[in-house]
């Protein structure tokens, strides 16, 4: 089991946790979807938001570092109410001179109409929005202070900014996961409870992480589970393709398409082109080596695609059997050296 203290600071864990906390789940279940219970749904994930021109014009000359756009990890929406929470997952607090602080200021400036415009809503839509930072409970107060100082900085030069709140994540000795919410924040955010709310029921000697919707976020440090998840999801997509193929047909393995499917479309929005290429190359290498060893005469390469001819039931059996015995994609284990998601391309 990974160190649980590392886990609660892991960006991918935090991101997937937020998604699970918006799921419709039965009462009394091992995961308590506190956001869902409070009426929040996922509006979007890693949605790029541009700072509207009037704000960009106004900020110039103020000697304040902001980015022209940002992509909050998750936007939650209170259904039918035009009330949004822009959720950012953070391992720890950050300094007011860091690149993270530039993104944070952009988020702060996306208040009300500015967010409405960035989301493409109708001009007369009245939007209420707040920023929520999710971080380890022991970083919560420090992160709160950082946010306060940025708020003051922007307010001092005449901006009205979004209210910001910090929620903490902590664990206990049974490996249960808690969300730590201050009582004032609970009311402001429209959540149902405050204090330390158990959101995942733990078990002894057991890693409490839930299934991952998003298997990999190359913009942050890689973790073993994320890569394992991507690897297994790729294998399941490959097996699905082969298993469904008719005899006497050609199977087209499009590496980009496989990655799109394995990440549920997240691969396509990763901003770092090099990162995408790197991953695509690895998938292609894995598939090529596998095909050469199994049916060398049945396949051909075409740019990013591998085409396999299935001429008989035996061909299909050979390849299905081999992939079913495949436990891992070794080539994926090499470090994925990339920074991902659009938001970080500028950082």
């Amino acid at each position: 089991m990974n160190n649980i203290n590392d886990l609660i600071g892991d960006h991918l864990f935090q991101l997937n946790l937020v998604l699970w906390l918006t799921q419709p789940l039965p009462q009394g279940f091992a995961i308590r979807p506190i956001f869902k219970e409070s009426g929040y749904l996922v509006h979007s994930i890693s949605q790029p938001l541009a700072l509207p021109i009037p704000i960009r014009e106004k900020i110039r000359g103020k000697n304040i570092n902001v980015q022209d756009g940002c992509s909050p990890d998750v936007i939650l929406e209170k259904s039918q109410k035009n009330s949004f929470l822009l959720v950012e997952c953070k391992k720890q607090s950050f300094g007011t001179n860091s690149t993270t602080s530039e993104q944070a200021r952009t988020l702060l400036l996306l208040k009300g109409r500015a967010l409405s415009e960035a989301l493409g809503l109708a001009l007369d839509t009245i939007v209420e929005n707040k920023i929520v930072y999710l971080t380890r409970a022991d970083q919560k107060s420090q992160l709160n202070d950082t946010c306060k100082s940025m708020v003051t900085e922007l307010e001092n030069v005449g901006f009205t900014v979004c209210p910001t709140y910090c929620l903490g994540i902590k664990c206990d000795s049974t490996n249960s996961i808690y969300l730590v919410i201050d009582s004032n924040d609970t009311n402001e955010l429209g959540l149902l409870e405050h204090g330390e709310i158990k959101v995942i029921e733990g078990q002894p000697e057991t890693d409490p992480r839930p299934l991952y919707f998003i298997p990999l976020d190359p913009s942050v440090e890689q973790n073993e589970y994320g890569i394992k998840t991507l690897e297994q999801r790729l294998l399941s997509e490959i097996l699905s393709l082969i298993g469904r193929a008719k005899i006497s047909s050609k199977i087209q393995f499009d590496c980009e398409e496989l990655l799109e499917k394995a990440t549920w479309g997240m691969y396509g929005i990763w901003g770092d082109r090099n990162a995408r290429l790197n991953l695509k190359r690895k998938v292609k290498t894995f598939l090529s080596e596998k095909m050469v060893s199994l049916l060398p005469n049945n396949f051909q390469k075409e740019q990013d695609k591998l085409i396999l001819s299935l001429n008989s039931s035996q061909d299909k059996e050979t390849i299905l059997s081999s992939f079913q015995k495949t436990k891992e994609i070794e080539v994926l284990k090499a470090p994925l050296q990339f920074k991902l998601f659009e938001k970080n391309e500028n950082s």
Partner: protein
Amino acid sequence: MTEVNISEIKNREEMIRLLDGYSIERKEELDQKKIKKGLVKSYLLETVDGFQDTKKTLSDILTPFASELIQIDEGLYKVLNKNSGKYMGFLESFWEGRYLAFYSLELSKNIDKLVKDLVLLSPQLDHVWLSGWTFNILWEKVKELSNPNRFTRIVFEHESIFEIDSDTDETDEDQIFEDEEEQLIFERRSSKIALVDKIGLLKDKLNKFQELYSPMYSITQLRFPSPIARGGHDFFHFGKATNRSESFRDHRSHVLYVLKIYRELIKKTQEIVWFSFEKVSIQKGGEFQKLIGAPLIVKFREPLNEETFNHFIISTFERVKNRFRLWGNPIRLGPKKVHVYGVDKHLWQPIFMEITDKHIIAIIPKGTCGNTVHRLVSNIQIYLDPAAEVTLGNKSYREIAQDSSREITYEQYK
């Protein structure tokens, strides 16, 4: 006795007459306990959602398995086994081929295996899976529709095969021990109970039986009494229906009724569980990545002990031929917790699962056929926990099954 000559059947009316006449003869033999030929059986099958690869013709599915379809009318075919040259029965297609009923006169011992093998080999075909919870809803329909003095037959089946590592795989399902002395002794919970009684008598008692003895939640067979004569229609959990009445038309009508309920159930299931990051366009261009879907949650009534949990994981994911027909390399997260990003091998579609001693969470990616859910629930009730509580998102499976069975109309035939 009517000579059955399927080859000469040229239209739907002739088929109905043939099967009606045949049913009357078999019913007479049944009454005299002298059955000479196979009863009429319907095998309810489902093709992959959207009929994606098979839209051109049903033959695409069956031809690779030595079966040829001879079209009678738009939705009706004769099925010829090309190897033996023998006609195996009729195939009727519903809702543009999404669901099929294969009517056969062969003996169960021959045709059951043939259909099972066909489903096993074809990635486009699956059985219609009626879980114990779905049967509980169908039982409500039997009570509602039938005279309380009529007899019904209910079979309950549960075998805790994972309580010991019995090294069984799905090929063992067909094993029949001819000799009692050869039967192996397994000390594990194994129940197969058949109840035959008046509906009026069972009406209020079944719930109580189930509360007292949980394997009775796992109904695997149920008889709908025929409204026009004695006998009825026995539905099995894997989508088989045997005609024990004297009317084929009545049999077909029951088959259609159950199929319609199942179709609604599949539609509702897919609406709820299909997970995806949906791309939603916005006014100013660009797209949102919206997460849509809800997980399937199975809560075990009692936690599985560590031994049972491990046997379940090993039997399912370390044996190519496993009862659940799942593939995956479990990621161990603790003594009684694994994650599997795997494949449902019935239709070769992805499925993600968290399995612990207390629950199973399944994520069904968009495109994976909804019947994966019902097969999984059915197998969990039969082999793991007959009383497992099942929800799709936060809505109970029972409730969804109940909604699917409400006010079935003729519009739904379309």
